[in-house]
């Protein structure tokens, strides 16, 4: 009359979520931002996302094979896709195809798998890939295009494909006619050459706060970020700390000298700051674990970004800021361990 059963450990309930699920939510959250991006800057970004994803999955499977790990669970976890998409969103939409290839080799091969694969990387893989190509190929990485509204030569999908794969721009005048300095670039060079912020901002590339087009892309990224907060994929500490520290630190400068310091909000809506605040600095693997640690981590990213923008050699410093704070994360974790029950 007795009956036997298979046993398995507690809890005896279906798991609530999975790594793949978490990564998919991040990808969903990026959709509005990507949509806005291609709306303002043409279809180039979509090609870059596809390119980066293909290379990322290629290197992911090669590294998994080489390390003797099972392919299926790790390819299906979408973590490589998240890395690829975040990287693609950081590079100029018309960057040559091999940029993605090199960046993904370093991101997936070096930063991720040589450190032990998923969950083991100290540095944010997307940022490692980005920084490698930014330093190695500065020319290709600074060829930004203005938003379609300002451009005389809008590039079709076919044009974008030709540009990305051949390096030749199929319009009269070539590269010089399609590229333009970004808002952060012109601000930096403008201030360095002694011009006033108000004067610099008369350029049509500026919108209400940041670069025209860019600020709307940032808004849509923020919307995706709120979705992640709502879904509790990310915690509020990091984005609040990143954005809050940028505002707090730039405010006194702006108040002291409005001629050579942009409005704090301009810092928020320029470059990759919003993307970083919600999607990059929130990477749990290379970030901090405790809430207090996350606040410190986020504040560090904000402060370093601002320092690089203000005094450093690069117009934007988000990637460097994230990588520097990645280095500090284990130390921060060590000193911000929460108090245990009854301790």
């Amino acid at each position, binding site marked *: 009359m007795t009956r036997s059963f298979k046993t398995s450990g507690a809890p005896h309930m279906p798991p609530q979520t999975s790594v793949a699920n978490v990564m998919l939510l991040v990808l969903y959250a990026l959709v509005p931002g990507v949509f806005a991006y291609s709306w303002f800057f043409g279809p180039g970004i979509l090609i870059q996302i596809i390119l980066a994803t293909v290379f990322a999955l290629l290197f992911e499977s090669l590294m998994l094979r080489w390390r003797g790990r099972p392919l299926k669970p790790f390819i299906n976890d979408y973590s490589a896709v998240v890395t690829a998409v975040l990287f693609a969103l950081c590079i100029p939409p018309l960057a040559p195809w091999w940029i993605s290839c090199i960046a993904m080799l370093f991101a997936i091969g070096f930063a991720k798998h040589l450190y032990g694969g998923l969950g083991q990387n100290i540095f944010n893989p997307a940022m490692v890939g980005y920084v490698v190509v930014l330093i190695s190929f500065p020319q290709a990485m600074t060829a930004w295009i203005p938003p379609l509204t300002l451009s005389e030569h809008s590039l079709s999908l076919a044009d974008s494909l030709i540009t990305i794969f051949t390096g030749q721009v199929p319009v009269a005048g070539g590269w010089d006619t399609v590229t333009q300095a970004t808002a952060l670039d012109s601000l930096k060079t403008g201030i360095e050459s002694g011009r006033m912020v108000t004067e610099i901002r008369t350029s049509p590339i500026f919108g209400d706060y940041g670069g025209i087009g860019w600020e709307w892309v940032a808004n849509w990224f923020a919307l995706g970020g709120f979705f992640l907060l709502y879904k509790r994929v990310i915690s509020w500490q990091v984005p609040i700390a990143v954005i809050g520290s940028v505002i707090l630190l730039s405010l006194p400068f702006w108040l002291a000298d409005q001629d050579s310091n942009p409005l704090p909000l301009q810092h928020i809506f320029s470059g990759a700051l919003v993307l970083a605040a919600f999607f990059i600095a929130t990477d749990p693997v290379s970030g901090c674990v405790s809430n207090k640690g996350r606040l410190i981590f986020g504040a560090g990213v904000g402060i370093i970004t601002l320092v690089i923008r203000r005094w450093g050699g690069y117009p934007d410093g988000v990637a460097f800021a994230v990588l520097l704070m990645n280095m500090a994360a284990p130390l921060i974790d060590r000193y911000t361990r929460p108090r245990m*029950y009854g301790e």
Partner: protein
Amino acid sequence: MTLAHQIELAREAGKRTHHFHGGLRLRHNKKISCQDSVERPLLPTLLIVPLLQHAGDVAKPLVEVGDHVLKGQKIGQCQPCAAVHSPVSGLVEAIEDRPMSHPSGQAGPCVLIRSDGKEQWAKLRPIGDWCNASAESLITQIQDCGIAGLGGAVFPTHAKARDGRDRQIHTLILNGAECEPYISCDEMLMREQPDKIILGARILRRALGAEQVVIAIEDQMGAVQEALTQAAKHAECKSISVVKVTTIYPEGGERQLIQVLTGLEVPSGGRPSDLGMVCQNVATAAAVAEAVVEGKPLIERYITVTGNGISHPRNLQALLGTRFSHLVEACGGYTLDVARLVVGGPMMGYPVASDSAPVVKASNCVLALTQQDIAEPQPEMPCIRCGECARVCPATLLPQQLHLQIKNDLWNTAEEYGLLACIECGCCDFVCPSHIPLVDWFRYGKGEQRKRARENEATELARKRFENREDRLLRTKQERGEKMKRRKQALKDNAVQQDRIRAAIDRAENKGDISGTSQSVGKPDDA
């Protein structure tokens, strides 16, 4: 905050409810087993009574194979643990090792009793006038009747009471916050026998010397509060209050419940009695009432038989030693798609390989789950440090960090990360997107830690012995050396003495010569 101040605050227990960190809001699934009133299943023919049913050592059997036993007769004795009694009258068929419904899955000594169907009781010795009985006699009665914590930890109740008495308890908390999904045996008990619980509460209060009793129930248990309050009023007992707490798993954990009722945390490594409180399960209180007033030992308990794998889920009053299969039959048997049998709730329960295991004092629920309830086991992925585990941890640990320490055999840091503070509630396991069996790791870690502590103790002992021996050897060596030295000195002294004597003799013999010599020696310059 000083401890005295904390104790002062603890006296306010239940006046206001507080929060604890983390926890989960889970689907209750309790209603399905609360439809029918609690009944006894048919008397089983063979009962398997394990001799280890409580936290502590295995009891020594007091009967032999072939003995005839009466219902309620003591068949296992264990000082200072709880006694074991026969649940039926009948014949002791065997005493052998059997699976004993222990989370470890280990087999242990069990007494097999074949019921004679007569249900003849042994002579019971109730304490008639418990209101005037001494606390010590109440505690002894509780011990004789084999009462242990029926919430699941089965810590012997008399030991807790005695410890509480020594430590000036002011508040007795009765835990009716049954937070695990599916389990409803305490809720049914509170609904059906509120008077017995109140009586048990009063007896325990007297045994402990506590001033007040706080009964904590969940806000989802509709009629229970009314029933208990009425019962307390009926007993004209004003020092008993019934407090509703919000249902969040694992609120029924002792430490979490105390935090909810007082806002205080039990010091790590300490016990609730440090705050002047003792926590008992409501079912334990009912068992105490039966033991003291009727003299009945603990041979029966409420148990929930539930889950989608059971035809008619319900609560039963089962004799200890009844096999789970017998209970399932009483509930209409399994459904066709039953896939897993769990003893306890879905969060902390342990799976059993067969339903032939017996009901023990700790068994509060038999949960039969279908494949749909449990889903396919997911592959374990590496930790992505998402921090969900830390967010839900009621002990405010960092489970992912702790897991890493244990995995890498870093035992000292594992302790720093609070390995021993883990209550194994399973919240972290449940939310982990990587499906890491965190609680299994923590249990393993605790086991290793205990082993290491034992080894350390042994090493320490060996070291002390060695040092003592070295000391002793050194001492004897020194002593011997000194002795030798003394003896040598003595010999030398002796020799000197001899020399002197000889010299004196010589002097005496050549008196003149000597004085002459001494003169020449004394003043060489004059020569």
